[in-house]
């Protein structure tokens, strides 16, 4: 299981400014028609990229300066709306290893967790500060050590929140949940027998 361990991540950041960025924007519906997730990295923010181009600037996901970045810094309620896992799948396949933001929609957060993509919560001031630092200097180094609980941006440590249970699931490579659920096979069968509305269907 060692390949599933998510612990130390380092690299550069990509600031994406705006509240309530929904998953329809992250992954437009027409790209949900593929039977696998494998190509989704190419479609992240497809429409926003075109819209930005029309206005004469490069969306951060295509701006040359941010290519190769692996930390995504967002604002509040990121990933709201549709439950499509295609959104975090696309972000991950684009190359993002960690998302830092003020708040995340629950389904998005849980989808990220399910695919081994940590979402760290920080205060609005910190999110904006990190975004400003990176925007000013794109080569800014970011490093995260989940075991030590340390997030360092440009040499400075920033506090963040991540549920300790989830934190340890990442660092021990146990974020993939199917196995843990399967382990309780007997308890599941027992529950199936007990639920009042399922009894008669047996």
């Amino acid at each position, binding site marked *: 299981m060692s390949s599933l361990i998510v612990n130390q991540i380092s690299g550069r950041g990509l600031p994406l*400014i*705006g*509240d*309530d960025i*929904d998953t*329809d*924007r992250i992954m*437009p*519906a*027409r790209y*949900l*028609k*593929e*039977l*696998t*997730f494998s190509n989704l990295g190419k479609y992240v923010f497809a*429409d*926003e990229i*075109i*819209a930005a181009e029309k206005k004469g600037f490069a969306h951060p996901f295509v701006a040359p300066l941010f290519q190769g970045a692996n930390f995504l810094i967002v604002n*509040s*309620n990121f990933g*709201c*709306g*549709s*439950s*499509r*896992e*295609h959104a*975090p799948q696309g972000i991950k396949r684009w190359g993002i290893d960690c998302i830092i933001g003020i*708040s995340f*929609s*629950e*389904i998005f957060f*849980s*989808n990220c967790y*399910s*695919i081994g993509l940590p979402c760290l919560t920080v205060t609005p001031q910190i999110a904006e500060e990190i975004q400003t630092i990176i925007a000013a200097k794109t080569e800014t180094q970011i490093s995260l050590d989940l075991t030590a609980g340390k997030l360092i941006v440009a040499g400075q440590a920033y506090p963040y929140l991540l*549920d*300790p*249970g989830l934190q*340890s*699931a990442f660092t021990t490579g146990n974020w993939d*949940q*199917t196995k*843990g*659920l*399967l382990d*309780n*096979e007997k*308890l*599941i069968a027992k*529950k*199936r027998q007990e*639920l*009042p*509305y*399922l009894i*008669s*269907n047996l």
Partner: protein
Amino acid sequence: MMGKTLYSKVFDLHTVSELKPGVFQLFIGLHLIHEVTTPQAFAMLEERGLGVKYPELTFATIDHIIPTKHTQRPFLDILSEDMASELERNVKKAGIRYFSPQNGEQGIVHVIGPEQGLTQPGITICCGDSHTATHGAFGAIAFGIGTSQVRDVLATQTLATQKLKVRRINVNGKLAPGVYAKDVILYIINKLGANGGGGYAYEYGGEVFDRFTMEERMTVCNMSIEGSARCGYVNPDQITYDFIKGRPYSPKESEWDARLKYWESIKSDPDAIYDDVVNYRAEDIAPMVTWGIGLDQSISIDSKLPANPEEAKMNLAGFTEAMEYMQFQPGEKITGKKIDLAFLGSCTNARVSDFKLVAELISQNNFKVAKGVQALVVPGSQKVKVELEKLGILATLANAGFEIREPGCSMCLGMNPDQLVGDQLCASTSNRNYKGRMGSPTGRTLIMSPAMVTAAAVTGEIQDCRNIFNIKN
């Protein structure tokens, strides 16, 4: 002992184990699936050599990609055809019951659950779809999940989840004529914010909900996620039980009393403790319309667009972005805005009662769809369509110039041929006004009640349904 909420009772009853502090393994009593969020889940199972644990607890249909016009197979769009065949292959292999177009049972997943009698009080329901909260109208704990969790539910009939807090939302008093369930939920989202429900399940109650039909309760619960509440529900009562009785999957006569006892037992206790309680007055609610690109960016039809970010409770960047995208000016009127399309459909408002109301409104004065406006009527399921036909409603609507389509998600999201073109403006009964939601990256959507969309369809512009149809106290 302190009273418990329905959420807490049902959650505890379905808890299989505590996986780690605060993370519970929850048994899922009903798993609904559709073609878009499942192919990868089945592929992952196959990769891991796992089967579907309890196929009899999963039910499938096809709704998102299905065309509403050229429905013959193979579908014209190859990718859609692939998705459909993949679903059919997977359900066949796993032995999952499939509500298919061929047997006349197909529809939007959140319409057919209740229609088949599958949706019942006190059960846990999951679907790879954020509008699963719709089923909460029956007093079920229903929420949307991602594809990896669909995999988990298929493999184990359980998933790992955290327990939500519960916010009780009371709406007391009496709604004025011309104000509907859709207006109630848009009002609630406006008040609590699109971000306001994070970490909460919403329990809706009060006199307005006590009187609501099941369809109306579904409309409200459907949009819980638009307020960031992953789950929303109404406690079951006689109206719920009457709706369930006699459907294909409802409890049989011999089981009814026992089941009723269970349903009654999971209702929130009168002394239940809530994490938060909010109260609204029905009299304060007017027909609502969204003006922006988030569901809390809305106004009552008799007021003007917010003049500035403060009025809209937004930051400057977000406010400017929304106004620019919608091509609206701060402070202007929304009435009089010309629309290109009117869409009557989606899991929020595509049940028989919704179209019945539309037919009644247009019949009073022989209204016709305005010139230059395309007005789509997309029933939520094949059974809804058959019923509408029987009631003569489809004929009425067709005569008035509405285009009647086959059931599916249609305009609600840009995955099937029904899409906006360019920056068209659409008055819609669906649930999302996000940028590009209806398939065109610059398309614009105004969310409102079926009566309001009908008013827009017949006048060609955004108007107060109460004035157009002379709806008075």
